[in-house]
């Protein structure tokens, strides 16, 4: 039996990596027994044990349980210890009642054919890989210290749903526990950038990355580009339509407001190709 593998090792200061159930499903090539619709749930720790008394005694809230005990007691224990899900290793499948219990209590149940040792190692390496992926193609090498890196997509034609990505980013940063004032600056800048995308571009990729020193939001769109960046940075300069202005947007304050709220802002733009915004916020 393998002792507990705790992901706390990746904690740096107050920062914590957020991993999602679906990342675990992928890493362990697991099948989903329950909770297919809540695989986007995040968790903070992993606890590996076959002894439910240990789970109840030492398990931390918001963990996932790795176990070879395929009884309903495993699922109930996980629920009592406020875990987010259970992974059954060695290809075990839980008994009948477990699935219903999990569905009723919003737990994810996965089953993997790996043994406990391999499963722990796969999760560990997935964690480290995850901190490195999606940074390729960027000029700077910032892999080693990356604590969190997540990618989002904004679709450009839906004006009324603008704010979805920035709201999501705000709640991620809140969960990590940053200073509300810092979160507010990131949230406002991201929302302004998101509005620019829905007003002027077709779609954009947003990359949020967090290091121990800096939060960075990159918004890379495939829009029409900005012919004169200095002009666009002037307060009041706008190319918004009347419809946008009737809704209270487009008063030419977007980029100036982003500049005001970021510690470092880089804008690259090519007419006809798109615009890339790199906003840095120092912690």
């Amino acid at each position, binding site marked *: 039996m393998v002792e507990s593998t705790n992901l706390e090792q990746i904690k740096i200061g107050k920062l914590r990596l957020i991993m999602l159930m679906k990342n675990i499903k992928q890493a362990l090539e697991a099948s989903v027994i329950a909770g297919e619709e809540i695989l986007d749930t995040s968790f903070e720790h992993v606890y590996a044990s076959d002894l439910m008394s240990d789970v109840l005694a030492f398990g931390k809230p918001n963990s996932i349980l790795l176990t070879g005990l395929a009884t309903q007691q495993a699922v109930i224990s996980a629920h009592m210890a406020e875990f987010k899900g259970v992974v059954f290793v060695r290809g075990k499948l839980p008994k009948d009642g477990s699935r219903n219990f999990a569905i009723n209590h919003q737990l994810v149940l996965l089953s993997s054919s790996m043994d406990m040792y391999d499963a722990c190692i796969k999760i560990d390496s997935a964690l480290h890989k995850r901190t490195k992926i999606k940074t390729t193609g960027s000029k700077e090498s910032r892999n080693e210290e990356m604590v969190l890196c997540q990618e989002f997509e904004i679709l450009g034609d839906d004006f009324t749903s603008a704010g979805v990505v920035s*709201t999501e980013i705000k709640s991620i940063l809140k969960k990590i526990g940053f200073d509300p004032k810092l979160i507010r600056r990131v949230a*406002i800048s991201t*929302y302004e950038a998101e509005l620019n995308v829905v007003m002027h571009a077709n779609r954009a990729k947003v990359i949020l990355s967090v290091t121990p020193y800096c939060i960075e939001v990159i918004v890379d769109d495939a829009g029409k580009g900005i012919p004169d960046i200095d002009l666009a940075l002037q307060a009041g300069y706008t190319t918004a339509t009347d419809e946008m202005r009737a809704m209270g947007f487009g*008063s030419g304050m977007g980029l100036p407001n982003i500049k005001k709220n970021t510690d470092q802002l880089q804008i690259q733009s090519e007419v006809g190709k798109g615009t890339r915004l790199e906003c840095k916020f120092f912690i």
Partner: protein
Amino acid sequence: MTLEQLCNKIDLKKMSQFTDKEINGVFVSDMISDVMAGAKSGNLWLTVQTHKSIVPAANLVDVSAVIITSGKQVPPETIELASKHDIAILSTDLPTFEIVGKLYAIGIQDS
């Protein structure tokens, strides 16, 4: 002053579901761009805009509540989204000028 205390002093209709919050000053604007640039955390935001984009704006700027003035009808999707994100939406039949006067009279001032 908190939102609950405010609602006890001034007749405001609670449109969304929200937890009580501390109020810190007032911001009046129908331009969302201005709200994003100028509103402070904890402000009451007074506006006649009712479309659902006011919710992410209110959420991201951390206003304590949005007060819809002049008896404007708030669409159900705005209210639904606000409740989901714990954003307080209050409404009044009074025009903006009059509600500002009342807020001032009960001692809410910009910080």
